[in-house]
């Protein structure tokens, strides 16, 4: 598909460095965890998790996202997608644990909405650098209990999501959904591996994408060779055993870069 034209209808400032862009298209078939390729014309095209059927939530990190932050309501960008495999949807009555760090909350908020819609009970561990950087707390709260951690202690537990996770009985949950900075996900992964619950956990990975549609191979992970853009971005914990998670990623040339 060629990029669809998406006109920005509303912009919400979620935190000093994170904004949600609502656009005039609705991806009705979107699964929570799926992404779109966002084309800032004349600059670059970057993958972004959908935070709703009609929104992306973006942290300003580089050239493309900086240009995106210059756009105003009425401006437009190109969108292709939704692509990839999302989180496995919860069934009625299941107990879900969401572990979200920073802008990693973006693809997990629609997951909480979906779980809530089928009467699943959702507990969320929501982590960020400081209180100002917490996003979508109210959406997670609408689905169940929220445990907050901040690096600086400005809200909730001072420390990391793993400080809260280590105190919870993970055996109580039917599914565990994780998205956040890779260092955080690797710590969560090790903890869940120790507790022997990896088979019910899912992690959303971030890698440099070129084609975004599973053909070029730029985003393949070791040692499985699975494509983050097509076989993921959401992988089960078992798929990530003996993987590069938390150790290295690759740059645009394919060179390994330590995390």
């Amino acid at each position, binding site marked *: 598909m060629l990029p669809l034209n998406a006109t920005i209808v509303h912009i919400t400032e979620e935190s000093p460095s994170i904004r949600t862009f609502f656009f005039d298209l609705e991806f009705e078939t979107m699964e929570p965890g799926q992404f779109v390729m966002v084309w800032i014309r004349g600059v670059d095209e970057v993958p972004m998790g959908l935070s709703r059927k009609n929104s992306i939530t973006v942290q300003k990190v580089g050239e493309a996202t900086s240009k995106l932050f210059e756009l105003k309501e009425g401006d437009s960008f190109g969108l292709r997608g939704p692509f990839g495999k999302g989180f496995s949807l919860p069934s009625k009555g299941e107990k879900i644990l969401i572990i979200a760090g920073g802008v990693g909350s973006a693809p997990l908020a629609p997951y909480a909405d979906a779980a809530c819609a089928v009467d699943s009970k959702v507990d969320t561990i929501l982590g960020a650098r400081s209180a100002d950087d917490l996003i979508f707390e109210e959406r997670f709260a609408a689905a169940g209990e929220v445990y907050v951690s901040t690096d600086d202690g400005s809200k909730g537990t001072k420390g990391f999501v793993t400080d809260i996770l280590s105190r919870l009985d993970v055996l109580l949950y039917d599914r565990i959904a994780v998205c956040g900075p890779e260092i955080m996900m690797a710590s969560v992964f090790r903890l869940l591996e120790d507790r022997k619950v990896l088979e019910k956990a899912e992690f959303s990975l971030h890698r440099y994408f070129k084609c975004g*549609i599973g053909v070029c191979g730029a985003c393949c992970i070791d040692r499985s*060779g699975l494509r983050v853009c097509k076989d993921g971005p959401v992988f089960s914990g078992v798929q990530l055993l003996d993987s590069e998670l938390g150790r290295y990623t690759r740059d645009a040339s394919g060179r390994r870069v330590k995390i």
Partner: protein
Amino acid sequence: MYTLTGLELKNPTILAAGILGTTGASLCRVACEGGAGAVVTKSIGPMPKTGHPNPSMVRLECGFLNAMGLPNPSYPGFLQELEIAKKDSGVPVIASIFGGTAAEFTEVAEGLLPGKPDAFELNVSCPHAEGYGAAVGTNPCLVEAITAAVKDVVNVPVWVKLSPNVSDITCIGTAAESGGADAVVAINTLKGMAIDIESGYPVLGNRSGGLSGKAVKPVAVKCVYDLYTALEIPIIGVGGVSSWQDAVEMMMAGASAVQIGSAVYDRVDIFSEISTGIEAFLQRKGYSNVKRLIGLSHEMV
């Protein structure tokens, strides 16, 4: 098992260059889970390259447009990936290489030799990388010189991948053969572009690129057909092969084997599906082996 330029292949389907070939693990997956008879790596050059800005590939109704821009970690950066592919794929691994001059080609080839590639494929046909690919591959003298130079420094087969963006592909194919090529691979992508009419911007980050997939198959079949008439060395057919019927057609035009690229979009195990389909076709037709198909259409007059 059959032999192609001295390599033992369990089936005639080969992963095309630039597809799922950035990492050793990915190449192993295509061989083991995908069922490819051999795999060709991403094109590797003398220096690390990040490639063109995105969008670098879009799917059209008739195929795919891409302008990756030869992203690669350079030969020192790729050696460990090549070693992984060699150790774990269980199939011949062909290193695709590019350069701007014969000296760069030989530098890259020699640099990858410690990884023990089973063959080299010279990319003289990428349509959208300035100074590389088709910039050298449209000139028969350069193609012959580059082929001869690489043949001089390696003792494994050398394949040369040809561009269809020339007035007479057999002229370039003949040059490769004269330079000592063990096979030619035809075809690389056809020049193409797409424009976003909402904004007027060309869609690809590089503005234009190369077309692959279903749309290019008839072009590829004709190129293979003509090369079969002109050359003594084997031809490996590539361009829009996505079913066993396409593969059989390509072989009847003169291909000794086929490469598959864009069709991995549908499924990674396309290679087993196609090789199983070819086997069933051979049985149904009572052909003793796959060699009976090669160039068959040339006899039908």
